[in-house]
């Protein structure tokens, strides 16, 4: 497996993972599951940034998107209802 095949295989895997986690984040009825899906989205996105040779953006995305935003959302959800309320 040379570099080109590895690169394009990784690109396809990243695209499939991003689409899956984004649709899961929208579709989940349990809000904590949706937040975890958003964290997975950010982590896969940071892997994509690292593959595209931008390690600065990858570190920022992994730190802010996958950790701090998740912590903020979890602390906010713990105060309110854990299930999505449909009017």
């Amino acid at each position, binding site marked *: 497996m040379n570099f080109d095949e590895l690169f394009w295989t990784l690109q396809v895997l990243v695209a499939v993972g991003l689409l899956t986690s984004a649709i899961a984040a929208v579709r989940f009825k349990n809000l904590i599951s949706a937040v975890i899906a958003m964290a997975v989205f950010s982590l896969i996105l940071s892997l994509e940034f690292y593959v595209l040779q931008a*390690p*600065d953006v990858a*570190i*920022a995305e992994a*730190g*802010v998107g996958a*950790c*701090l935003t998740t*912590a*903020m959302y*979890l*602390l*906010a959800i*713990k*105060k309110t209802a854990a299930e999505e309320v449909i009017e």
Partner: protein
Amino acid sequence: MTTVIIKTTTKYLAALILTFGAYIIVHGHLTPGGGFQGGAVFASGLALLIVACEGDVIRERFKKVPLSALESVGALGFLGMATLGFMGYTFFRNVIANSGFPLFGEPTPLGINPGYLNTGGTLPYMNIFVGTKVLAGLTSIILVFYLLLEVRENE
């Protein structure tokens, strides 16, 4: 949220995450990363500690940490390092680089080199100030969320 899993994970991971954040801040002019990224990683470690500990312990510990003052010191220090460029040049001029100043003032050898910590001019100072500012700001946001959570439980 204080289960045994989170407490055991925090006991082993928090020190590593904090060390990695400090490494990214201090080595910002040599390796990928910088003030903002290192501050975000450091604040992630502090958020892990905040989530894993009890409320009383957190209020005791963070009462002595002046987070707002650290934020202001970071912003003012960043502006001050930028204003240093007025010594004969323009705003944001890197006046300390290649000047022989004992701290971070050495010239760097051209080409591929292993990286020397004592180079960079104003860049390491700005990295440290911006890192302080970012970690204080993000940690205070998480802390305010956590303390607000506790209020609702008591009432």
